[in-house]
C-alpha cells in the first residue's frame, strides 16, 4: 500500500487530468446520471467521465478487485472522496445497487451471485430499484403479500409493489417477497433479485400532489425468477432488509450532496418576499419565522453534536433516532411559513406569470409532505424512540 499522502497526490493528479471541466460544477436538476443498460447521457463529457471512473474501478472503490472494485482501504476511499469534493467533481453516476444491495450481497451472497451481479453493478451496467413497500404494507412493511411460490426449478412471483423509485427505468429489482404465508409475518419473507425485463412485469408511474415523480407502481403477473436469485436463507429476508435499510441513510446522505437542497434559509427568503414587516400580521409571521429558524439552528447544532459524538466513539443511537423526524417536520413548518409570507405569489401552478423560484417553492412545499412519510414515517420514528431509546413497554396487541 502506498503512503496516504502519496495516494492523495496521485488521486488529485488523476482527477485533474480526467474529470472534464464541465463536470466540476454542482449537478443541475435532471443531469444526474443513472448507471444502467442505457445511461442517460445528455452531453459527451458525462459519458467520458462515467467511462473513465468506471475503468478506474472507482464506482465502488472499496470493493475487492475480483468483484469489480479497486480494493481501496476506507482511509484511501476518504482521500478519494475528499479530493473529489475539493475539485467539485460531479458523481459519475448514481446507483442504488452499489449503495444498498452491494454491501448485503458482499456479505451474504453466494460466490456465483457475486460474480453474476456485483461485477456489472460495479461497471454501472445495471440499474437497480428497491421493491419493499406494497399498497397494504407501508409503515407495517412486514405485512407484505407479494408471493414467490416454489415451482421446483424457479419461483413464480405474483403481487405488486409501490413507491418504487424509477421502477420504470430499472433493469433489476431487489425485492422482499413472501415465501411462507403460514409463518409469522417476519419469518416468511425472502430477498429475491428480479429481472425487470422479465415477462409479466409491468410498471406505472405515480403522480404526486407536487406533480411528476420518479415513483412507480410495479405489478407482477406470474413472473419467473431463477432459484439462484434468492439472497441468503429462504425465509431469512427480514434480517437482510434491516441491514439494507441501514445503508439507506448513508445512501440518502450521498443524494443530499447533489440533489435539490432540502435545507433552505427561511430568514433570507422571508427577507426577499416580505422585507421590513410592518403590519401586525406581518410582524406576527416574522416572529413565527424566527421561532422556526431557532428550531432549525438547534437541529443543525444537533447534527454537529452527533458527528462529534460519533468521532469520539460515544454511543448515540438515541440522538441518531431523532434526526429524520426533526428535520422532515421542521421543513414542513418552514415551507408553510414561507408560503404565508409569499402570499398569492406562492400559489402559481404551471403559469409563467409566476417566477421559476416561486413555482419551485410551491412544488418543494408539496414535496415536503412526502419526506415525513417516506423512509419511516414520523409516527414510526416516534415508535422507535419510545421503544428502543426510552424502552417503554411493548403493547402486546400490536406487532411491529
Amino acid at each position, binding site marked *: 500500500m502506498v503512503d496516504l499522502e502519496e495516494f492523495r497526490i496521485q488521486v488529485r493528479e488523476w482527477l485533474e487530468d480526467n474529470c472534464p471541466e464541465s463536470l466540476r460544477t454542482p449537478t443541475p436538476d435532471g443531469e444526474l446520471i443513472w448507471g444502467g443498460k442505457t445511461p442517460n447521457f445528455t452531453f459527451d463529457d458525462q459519458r467520458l467521465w462515467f467511462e473513465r471512473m468506471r475503468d478506474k474501478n472507482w464506482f465502488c472503490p472499496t470493493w475487492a478487485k475480483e468483484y469489480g472494485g479497486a480494493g481501496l482501504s476506507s482511509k484511501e476511499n476518504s482521500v478519494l472522496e475528499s479530493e473529489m469534493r475539493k475539485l467539485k467533481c460531479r458523481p459519475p453516476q448514481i446507483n442504488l445497487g452499489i449503495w444498498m444491495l452491494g454491501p448485503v450481497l458482499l456479505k451474504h451472497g453466494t460466490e456465483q451471485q457475486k460474480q453474476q451481479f456485483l461485477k456489472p453493478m460495479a461497471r454501472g451496467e445495471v440499474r437497480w430499484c428497491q421493491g419493499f413497500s406494497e399498497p397494504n404494507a407501508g409503515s407495517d412493511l412486514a405485512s407484505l403479500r407479494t408471493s414467490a411460490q416454489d415451482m421446483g426449478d424457479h419461483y413464480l412471483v405474483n403481487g405488486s409493489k409501490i413507491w418504487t423509485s424509477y421502477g420504470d427505468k430499472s433493469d433489476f429489482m431487489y425485492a422482499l417477497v413472501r415465501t411462507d404465508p403460514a409463518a409469522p409475518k417476519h419469518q416468511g419473507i425472502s430477498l429475491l433479485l428480479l429481472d425487470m425485463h422479465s415477462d409479466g412485469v409491468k410498471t406505472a408511474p405515480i403522480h404526486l400532489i407536487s406533480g411528476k415523480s420518479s415513483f412507480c407502481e410495479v405489478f407482477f403477473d406470474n413472473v419467473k425468477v431463477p432459484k439462484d436469485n434468492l439472497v441468503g436463507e429462504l425465509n431469512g429476508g427480514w434480517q437482510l432488509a434491516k441491514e439494507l435499510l441501514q445503508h439507506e441513510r448513508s445512501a440518502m446522505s450521498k443524494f443530499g450532496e447533489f440533489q435539490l437542497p432540502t435545507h433552505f434559509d427561511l*430568514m433570507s427568503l422571508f427577507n426577499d418576499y416580505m422585507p421590513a414587516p410592518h403590519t401586525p400580521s406581518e410582524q406576527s409571521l*416574522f*416572529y413565527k419565522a*424566527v*421561532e422556526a*429558524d*431557532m*428550531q432549525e*439552528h*438547534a*437541529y443543525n*447544532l*444537533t447534527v*454537529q*453534536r452527533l458527528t*462529534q*459524538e460519533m468521532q*469520539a466513539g*460515544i454511543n448515540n443511537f*438515541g*440522538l441518531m433516532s*431523532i434526526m429524520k*423526524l*426533526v428535520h422532515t417536520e421542521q421543513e414542513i413548518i418552514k415551507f408553510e411559513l414561507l408560503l404565508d409570507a409569499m402570499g398569492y405569489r406562492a400559489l402559481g401552478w404551471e403559469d409563467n406569470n409566476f417566477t421559476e423560484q416561486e413555482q419551485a417553492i410551491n412544488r418543494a412545499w408539496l414535496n415536503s409532505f412526502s419526506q415525513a412519510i417516506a423512509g419511516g414515517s414520523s*409516527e414510526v420514528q*416516534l*415508535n422507535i*424512540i*419510545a*421503544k428502543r*431509546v*426510552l*424502552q*417503554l*413497554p*411493548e*403493547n*402486546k396487541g*400490536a406487532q411491529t
Partner: protein
Amino acid sequence: MSLVYSEDDRMLADTAEEFLLSKSPVAAQRTLRDSKSALNFDNDVWQQMVELGWTAITFPEKLGGLEFGYKGLGAVFESMGKHLTASPLLSSVVLCGSLLEQLANDSQLEWLNHIISGEKRLALAIDEKARHEPFNFQTEAVDVADGFVLSGKKVMVMDGLSADGWVVSAKHKEGVSLFIVPFSEDVIVKRTNLVDSRNYAELTFNELTLPVNALLGNPGDSIDAINHSLDLGRLCLSSEILGASKALFDMTVEYLKTREQFGVKIGTFQALQHRAANCYVELELAQSCVIAALSNADDTKSDLGLSASLAKCQVSKAADLITREAIQMHGGIGVTDELDIGLYLKRIRVAQMSLGDADFHQARYGELKNKM
C-alpha cells in the same frame, strides 16, 4: 466549536453529581423550604462548594481562578438542576464575578477575591419591571462631590437577602452605569417569597451616598459588559433548567414503566409513548443548544448573545413541555406535594422567567440575527 464534554469536564460533572447527591439531594431542598430558613440556601453546602473550587472554575489564574471554562461550570449547573440545589453560584460568582472580571479596578478586585474564597457574596440588582428588561430602569445615580447619590428600587434580586453587597445598574448622565453597593442599613431590603422558595429581595435606595470608587467601570460604558455577564448567567441557568428537566423526564419515563391501569403498564399506550418521545426530542435539541452556548463562552465570544438566547429559549420551551407532561402523565399524584414533581415545576418556572423568558430570547435572537 466542541459540542461534547471533555474528559476533564466529565470528571468535574461526576464529582458534582457525587457531592450533590450526598450533601444536597432533593429531599434537602424540601427540608430547607419547610424550615423557612432565613437564607433559603444551605450555607454549609455552599462553603463546601467553595472548597471544591466551584467559585473559581471560570476565572483566569492571575485572578485566583482555575481557568477551567464554562463547559465545566455548565456541567456543575446541570447537576445542581437535577438536585434542585439552591446556591449563590449564579448570582455571586457568574453574574457579579464576571462583571468584576470585566470592569473592576485594582481595589475593586478585592471583591472578586472574596467571592472566589467564599468569604463574601454579591448579588446583581438589575430588574425593575414585572418582566426581565435589563435596560429599562428608573434607578438613577447623580454626581456629587466625592461620589454619587443613588435612588431607585430593584426587584427580583437573586440571593439579595443577607448579601455582603450588591452590584446595581443605574442611569447616570453619561449613560448606563454599574455601582458596587456594600451592605448598609441605609439600603431597604425586603424579602420576596417566590414559588421556588429561594432567596430573592427587593432593594430600595433612598438617596444613598456612594464613594467615587463605587463606580464599576467607566460611567455610561457598561452595556456590553452587562450583556456579556447576563449571557453567561443565562447559559448557566439554561444548564440548570436542562438538568432539572432531564431529572423530571427520567422520573416520568420510569413512572410510565411501572404504573398500571386497565391491566397494563400505561407506557404501552401509544398516545403516551409518542408524547414521551417528543419530550425526548425537545430535550436533545435543547441540550445541543446549551452545550454550544457553553462552548461559545469558552472559545469565541463573538456570537455569545445569539447562542445564549438560543439556549435559554429552547431549553425553557422544552422545560415547559416536560413539566406539563410530567404532571399530566403522573395523573392525580402528580399534583400532590408529596411527590417532587411540584418542586421541579416551581423551580423551572422561576428559572425560565429569570434573565429573560423564551419570548424575550426569541425576540432578541431575531434582532441579533437581523444585524448579522
